[in-house]
């Protein structure tokens, strides 16, 4: 029987040794692979997350979720700035599907570790500070042991467990998306290319009863403080949707008041009747190509107006 115990222990030890070796190798290979992947931006959510967190150094950055991806056309922003300033600003849309305030804050932190952009546009919505971010951390797990900002993010949201020390565990699910990124050439924003039109307009005014999350308030405040500290011109923008935003909600009021107090431009297009047209949207939340074109041009006009009033672009 004693032999049996020893045999079991030896088996467990050998298996653990193999797993640890694979885990370490995976971590090493993963980091190398992601560095390689960052040499040029590629399509696909995983590649975009990787590039945004670890490599992007734009002059103008757009932060946000799928609405940021769909509503802001970097080419229009680039051309508009060129026409105005005669300077070649690089513009990068860092929007990632299903992300919320937490990503915007830590995405900005990662960005400021590498560069100081001139303009950052944060795309927000009425429940921005009331949304529970806990469902959207999967995409960031591969960076838990690589990127200190992401490690801090996961820690502050209680996502760092004993298991996240494992590279294998951290790459769960995302590995396939990251692997597929290698085969996707750098390309245009597929969402922006969408010309699908929504068939009917159902304008809804949804009463928002979401309460504010203390951690989200902390992150929103920190994001504004961080931008001011590094002298980055931050624009907080609510882009159009087919749902009217509840301007009486706690979250909306907090965003508006905080921006006013901190002297951060808050541009709200969410209730602008101009955009309530079926041919501007591909669904009730996301604009299509025509909508994005119109909205981005309008936004740039307002940004220029804002600069004309305040400061000159540095």
């Amino acid at each position, binding site marked *: 029987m004693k032999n049996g115990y020893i045999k079991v222990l030896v088996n467990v030890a050998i298996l653990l040794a193999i797993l640890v070796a694979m885990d370490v190798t995976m971590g090493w290979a993963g980091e190398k692979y992601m560095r390689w992947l960052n040499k040029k931006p590629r399509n696909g959510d995983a590649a975009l997350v990787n590039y945004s967190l670890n490599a992007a150094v734009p002059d103008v950055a757009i932060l946000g979720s799928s609405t940021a991806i769909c509503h802001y056309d970097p080419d229009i922003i680039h051309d508009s700035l060129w026409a105005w300033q005669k300077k070649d600003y690089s513009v990068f849309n860092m929007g990632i599907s299903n992300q919320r305030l937490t990503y915007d804050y830590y995405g900005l932190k990662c960005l400021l570790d590498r560069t100081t952009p001139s303009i950052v546009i944060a795309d927000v919505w009425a429940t921005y500070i009331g949304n529970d971010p806990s469902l959207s951390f999967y995409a960031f797990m591969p960076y838990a042991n690589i990127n200190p900002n992401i490690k801090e993010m996961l820690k502050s949201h209680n996502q760092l467990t*004993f298991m996240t020390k494992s590279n294998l565990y951290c790459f*769960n*699910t995302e*590995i396939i998306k990251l692997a597929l990124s290698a085969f996707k050439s750098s390309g245009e924003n597929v969402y922006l290319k969408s010309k699908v039109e929504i068939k009917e307009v159902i304008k809804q005014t949804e009463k928002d009863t979401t309460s504010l999350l203390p951690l989200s308030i902390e992150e929103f405040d920190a994001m504004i403080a961080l931008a001011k500290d590094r002298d980055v011109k931050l624009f907080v923008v609510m882009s159009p949707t087919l749902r009217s935003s509840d301007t009486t909600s706690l979250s909306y009021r907090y965003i508006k008041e905080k921006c006013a107090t901190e002297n951060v431009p808050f541009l709200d297009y969410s209730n602008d009747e101009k955009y309530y047209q079926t041919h501007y949207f591909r669904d009730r939340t996301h604009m299509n190509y025509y909508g994005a074109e119109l909205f981005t041009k309008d936004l740039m006009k307002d940004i220029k107006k804002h600069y004309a009033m305040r400061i000159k672009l540095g």
Partner: protein
Amino acid sequence: MIIYSFKYIIAFFVLFWIYWLLCKNKHTQNALLLLASYLFYGFWDWRCLLLLFATSVIAYGAGLYFKKVPIADKMFLRKSTRWWVRFAAVAFSLGVLIYFKYTNFFLSSINKLFGGGDYHPLSIILPVGISFYTFSAISYVVDCYQKKIEPTTDIIAGLLYTSFFPAILSGPIHKATEQLPQYLVKREFDYGLINKGFKEYVWGVFMKLCVADRLGMYVDAVYGNIANHNGTTLLFTSVAYTLQIYADFAGYSLMAIGCGKMLGIRLQNNFNLPYFSKTITEFWSKWHMSLTGWFKNYLYIPLGGNRVSKGRWIVNIMVVFLLSGLWHGAAFTFIIWGGIHGVAQVIEKLVYGKRIKTIENKFSVANVLRVLLTFSIVSFAWIFFRLSSINEVFTVISKIFNNRGHLFVEPTLFMAICSLLLLVLKDSFDQFGAKVRLFDSKYAVVRYLSIAMLIVYILLFGVLEGGQFIYFQF
């Protein structure tokens, strides 16, 4: 605490060593396992522990009575007290099951029948694993009454029989004659059995996390939004669900069986490649075998089985399958699911007659067609099982036949299909007796690497968060 969670694995590892190193006799072994079982169950819902305890004590108490009074003595209402004790013990278990699981179903059905208004369900919690441990308790009471086993006087062993933690949430349902004797002797450390149990556990985790839960993400996405999907997608989804439920339930059973083996307890095998069945009858001899066995021993045979007139025999089969449907869930869709299987069995037994038992298990065109037909019937029936209303079922069936289009594809489907291919490959090797044995290879390197690769695969491609077993709700 889910059976594949990291917490469970750590806790099991600690329990394993305490069990084998410190427990020197059957009493300490049983006491430790009982404590672990109650702790494990208490993690789910400590309030329901009392119910589990009461069910176990009543079954044990009935057994003690049968031991004390081995033959029918006093009569009451023309029945012996032994009969009444059995009746009371079985009625208690069934009563508990019916009250907690079916009260709202029966009341809402009665309300509908008499054209009542909105029915407000009573707030009754559904204790996890209730269908499994009440059936195990009934098996013990009936087997003791029928003198198939000697009732135990060892209360710890008696309680452990109903509560053994790996099997309490989703089975296999214990058969007293096979399970109880194992708790009455000291378990010896058996390296071979432990090794086998570990491999079964890992394969069970793979089936659950990499196949069932990945397919589940796709199935939930489609069935959660039936109106927006075409018939092609719905047809594919019904097949995906057929595979999901197998991987889910067989995966859990394998994990439970594996954990049992690592503690020296052999639980009943629950699945034996059911989708390779050539008839529905064969399917039920390979699917959820512990439940099939229970219904056969405690319902079908007492009703007369097949040793009755043809009409009565058909009624017996239908009763068994309709009740089996109801056992799975308190809804008409489950009853219809059972009905489809009952009707299919009756038809094939009428068509095949006695030849049904002599269909050879060899590769032939006829057998391939039989397997495909059986698989199609089973998949069709699962639509009723999965969806929550008859209206949804009819929408799905109507779209399958009338609304073709492009298949809805999601990234998770790619991972599910890769895992599914691995599962099908292994099951095919098992079915056709191929000699590819990676986990049991004679080369140590192959053995270690194949297990390690499987664990790595699970860590990379399994759905590690938020999974739930389909059969927990039963």
